């Protein structure tokens, strides 16, 4: 998509005034819902995402059960009011794909072999969207899983990098996503650096790809610290009674 919008100005600043390697503002809060076993509310720039975790509980229908390990069912859903105009409610091609890739990413880090025949349900509700909702959703899901007390190898975290005006930048905003050249969402396990999810939209040269992946990984590590802080903030108060 060619356009004459300038995404990076002469000072090297982006549309919203960020530097190329700067993240949008992120706010994470753990344990916001009472009925769910674990939950998280996350704001990432203009994204507002709510994640809720249930389980482990017996997988239904029965034929989906795995006799050796638990299954993780993530369900990514966008609210009708999350985008301009209106999103037609219900699962569509896009949200089913995102649900699938997030489920697979989470299955890798949950200790599923501890709960044979069980299911862990993760609901990700996008209330407000502004590019990068799958990263925001997966990041929120990671905090919600930890909040639910589910045994896991790591707290997963996601962040995107991309290319705008021929330059590789971190964490694309809405206009950058729409009019940019490429978008590369990455989810990692921050302790080991293992990649849990990697998708790409657009074109990057091999060199640009390496740079973008590097940049996204760094972004993930920054977000990971915020996740851990959010969980600690929620639970350190239980120690301060006396």
């Amino acid at each position, binding site marked *: 998509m060619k356009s004459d919008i300038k995404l990076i100005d002469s000072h090297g600043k982006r549309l919203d005034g960020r530097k190329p390697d700067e993240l949008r503002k992120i706010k994470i809060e753990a344990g916001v819902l009472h009925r769910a076993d674990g939950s998280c509310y996350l704001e990432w720039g203009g994204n507002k995402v709510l994640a809720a975790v249930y389980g482990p509980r017996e997988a239904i229908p029965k034929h989906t059960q795995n006799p050796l390990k638990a299954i993780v069912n993530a369900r990514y859903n966008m609210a009708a009011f999350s985008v301009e105009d209106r999103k037609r409610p219900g699962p569509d091609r896009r949200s089913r794909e995102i649900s699938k890739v997030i489920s697979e990413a989470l299955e890798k880090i949950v200790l599923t072999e501890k709960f044979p025949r069980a299911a862990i349900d993760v609901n990700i509700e996008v209330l407000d969207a502004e590019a990068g909702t799958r990263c925001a959703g997966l990041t929120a899901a990671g905090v919600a899983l930890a909040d639910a007390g589910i045994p896991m*190898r790591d707290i997963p975290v996601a962040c995107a990098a991309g290319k705008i005006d021929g330059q590789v930048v971190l964490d694309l905003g809405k206009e950058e996503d729409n009019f940019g050249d490429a978008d590369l969402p990455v989810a990692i396990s921050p302790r080991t650096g293992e990649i849990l999810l990697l998708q790409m939209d657009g074109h990057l040269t091999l060199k640009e790809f390496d740079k973008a992946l590097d940049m996204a990984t760094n972004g993930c590590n920054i977000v990971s610290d915020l996740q851990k802080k959010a969980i600690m903030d929620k*639970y350190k108060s239980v120690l301060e009674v006396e």
Partner: protein
Amino acid sequence: MSEEKREIVIPSQFLGDAKTDKAGRGTFIEDGKIYSERLGVLNKNSGYINVIPLKGRYDPVEGDFVIGIVEEASTSSWLVDINAPYPALLHVNEVPWDVDFGETEKYLKHGDSIMAKILQVDVSKKIQITLKDHNLYKIKGGHIIYVEPSKVPRVIGKKGSMISLLKKYTRCRIFVGQNGRIWIDGDDEGIAKVLHTIRKIEDEALSYGLTDRIENLLKKDAKDVR
């Protein structure tokens, strides 16, 4: 009890080297290092590093006493919800009554509560429970409340100290299931007092000297009443 500061740990937090420490409950080893696998409180005990969960489902252990709610009656068994990831099976041979084939609903039906003991948990996490032990029966009357399973040991107290305090000062009958369900029976005032106290125990579960404080609280209340 040591007065060492308690520490909250989160999943994937590094806890120690597998060469010098032993990995206990709630931890896993990777590349010779011990990490926490869940959100919990760090506990070091005779060389073992344990993480005691703050939240999460009840993990059934053989021999535990639990309170279950009957979900389904089939011809020769019942399925009982014990707040574990899986429903537990109660076979007709494991109840004290002589149940005729297909007459299970006469004895326990959907929604009934029972005090039960966990008979067996196999490798695929199939759970069997039994009613054949002393003090196990169908619950009639009283209240059932729920606390986090990880906080049950605090409600019971050391060698049952907390629970005997509660019984002494409120004259209620109380049964604490390891799965976090607690049955209380007595007069309205006593039940209200137990409820209030248990919520307080739950809130302050991680603080020191809790039993003494609860005793003072109960004593004070008892004076006010008379």
